[in-house]
């Protein structure tokens, strides 16, 4: 990724430079715009348009069938007193805390492992990414069976070892952790591949120099690998944040927000409000809240993992 950033940065400099290269001709610019047009059209119609409409709808009461009626900030006021919304925020944040650290640390370790020269490395990399390419609903169904209280394979082995059956998805204190395990399993390979790309972009000469200087492997990792991996880490943290906060599929399949409201996340609540209760305005207001929370999180993340310009 960093390689790609560097090369695209160099390309940009070349395009804007007046020395040594010819300026981009107007006709070439038009052709470039034409190439961009299909994606731009899709983005405007299916991404940007609905997003803006969603923000607008959050100020209306609308049951999808009738006309919209403007209610100002009432949907946002309702959030202040809606205990289910508060529960959904809390669950989302707990879920975020449960998944983000393991997804960063474990994937970094796994990437470092797969970055070694060894036999079967490529096979290992493919195996690591398989959970990510499975359809989320399928992942949910598979784990549903594995988590079954009475006849699931996990409890089978736990009982074999003399333990008591765990109510993975039906105990309100355990369900969110169980879903988090599935998400970590599912996204670990994806993050690993991203870190692996970052690791492979670090020049080998730096490691050779540190070896000559007598640095230990730990020192090399802390002083060379981690700092140079910062752009990748920043990107992985951002993507993981977005993916976990917006998580819906697996929860929908595995618990549907239950037991009770113990796995009710913000996006799950958004879905129920908008598409089951037909409170489109309130669902849109929750969407705005998700957006604000994500922006705040990314802002904080940028503070801690600030990537210097030109890196």
């Amino acid at each position, binding site marked *: 990724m960093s390689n790609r950033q560097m090369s695209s940065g160099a390309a940009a400099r070349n395009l804007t430079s007046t020395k040594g290269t010819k300026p981009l001709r107007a006709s070439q610019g038009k052709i470039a715009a034409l190439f961009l047009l299909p994606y731009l059209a899709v983005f405007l119609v299916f991404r940007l348009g609905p997003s803006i409409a969603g923000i607008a709808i959050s100020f209306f009461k609308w049951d999808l069938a009738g006309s919209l009626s403007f209610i100002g900030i009432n949907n946002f006021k309702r959030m202040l007193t809606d205990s289910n919304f508060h529960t959904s925020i809390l669950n989302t944040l707990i879920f975020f805390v449960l998944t983000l650290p393991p997804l960063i640390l474990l994937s970094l370790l796994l990437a470092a492992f797969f970055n070694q020269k060894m036999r079967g490395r490529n096979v290992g990399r493919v195996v690591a990414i398989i959970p990510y390419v499975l359809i989320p609903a399928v992942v949910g169904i598979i784990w549903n069976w594995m988590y079954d209280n009475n006849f699931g394979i996990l409890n089978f082995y736990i009982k074999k070892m003399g333990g008591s059956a765990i109510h993975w998805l039906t105990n*309100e204190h355990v369900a969110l952790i169980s879903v988090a395990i599935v998400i970590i399993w599912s996204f670990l390979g994806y993050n690993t591949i991203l870190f692996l790309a970052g690791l492979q972009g670090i020049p080998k000469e730096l490691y050779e120099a540190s070896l000559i200087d007598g640095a230990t492997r730990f020192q090399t990792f802390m002083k060379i690998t981690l700092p140079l991996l910062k752009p990748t880490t920043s990107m992985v943290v951002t993507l993981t944040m977005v993916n976990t906060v917006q998580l819906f599929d697996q929860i929908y399949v595995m618990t549907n927000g239950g*037991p009770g409201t113990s796995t009710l996340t913000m996006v799950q609540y958004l879905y129920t409000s908008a598409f089951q209760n*037909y409170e489109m305005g309130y669902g849109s207001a929750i969407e705005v809240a998700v957006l604000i929370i994500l922006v705040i999180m990314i802002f904080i993340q940028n503070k801690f993992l600030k990537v210097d310009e030109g890196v």
Partner: protein
Amino acid sequence: MKKIIAVLASIAMVSSLFSGCAGGSQPASTASGAASGAASSSASAPVSINYYGGWTGGDLDKMSALVQKFNESQSEVQVTFTSLQWSQMFTKFLADYQAGSTPDVVAMHTFELGQFVDMGVLNADAIKGLNLNAADYIKTAWDGTILNDVQYGIPLDVNMHALYYNKDLFKAAGIASAPTNKEELIAAAQKLTVDANGKNATESGFDAANIKQYGFGFLQNHHAFYQTFALMNQQGYNPFTDNMTTLSLDSGKTSAALQFLEDLVYKYKVTPAGEKSPIDDFKAGSVAMVIDGNWQLSGVNSAAKFDWDTAAYPQIFSQKAVWGAAELLAIPNNKDADKVKAAQTFIKWLSDNSAEWALSGQIPANVKAQQAATKIKGIDAYNSELDYVKFLPAHKKSVKIFSSAAPSPILTAAQNAMLNGKDPAEITKQLESDINKVLAG
């Protein structure tokens, strides 16, 4: 699923910008005289109509076959059938309605009717124009199509809970017949709950931590509340009405219903806590009796490798009652009189020819169709319950109150009882409070 949401949101939001805000493209209500408008339609070109349903699996195949049969039986009306999961289908229905391309026929359950009536999207006059006769339909199903003295649909079928039991396991345990009351049910379930050492729940040394075969199973989601509802009715108590504005629950009766279900898990230990798919456990032979609906009959008939049968839902309290629901066919508002006429023709035909629908385990609401239907194995027990089946009300907020997805008052109550073993009186209190919050919202 994210993609589905994105598509649905796009439809909703884009349509809000380009049609909803304009406020002029909403389909208008059509009078019963719509039928007369058909005379002006072209004699040669068939009228094409869209029909939305929420069936999946075997039900879907049977309904698709019925639609195809209708299309082949005449040349005036051609029906395009679309089936999605219920909640997704309703979202599509409303989005299409808003966009001015409403489906012409929509299937729904009786308890969902109130919401759509409140939205004003259903054409009651089109149903009135069919001149249906109440005597031709099962009474509970017929009553379920009427809200505030107005009929909004034609009854299609009736669904209920009943008891599935494994006759081979009964024979091995020395039990002669299916349980009919509380004492028989608990006694049978205890005998049929067997641990890893082969001891049943009535024997000393029974190891409740290592149960290999359970005696009694049931879904512990919203269906556990449906059973609570049945058990409240068995005490002659039904606080839920079509027009309730507040709810005051009888703590004694509601708690007694919840307590009975909790005891099966936590006191008698004959029901697996957190059971996800009792019918699959039943088919696998790991649970001897389960409570489930007639929509499972087709699947059990084809999958069970043992002798089995069904029995009426046991009478636990003073009178018989069982939870049920009916499906109905409604016609949304539409300016196009030809399409309304075609929809009328189609739903009348479907009702009259619903005998084949029974092959999927459904009980046709049309009496003649019910009598003509080939009896699928296990249906008799369900038919025997028709006189005392109880429906949830068609309140305008029923979909929210009786939702199967969190946050749902009934789901929270059911799971607090079945999964957490909480005090039934406390659950009752919270249920009352949660429902009142929805009613006040």
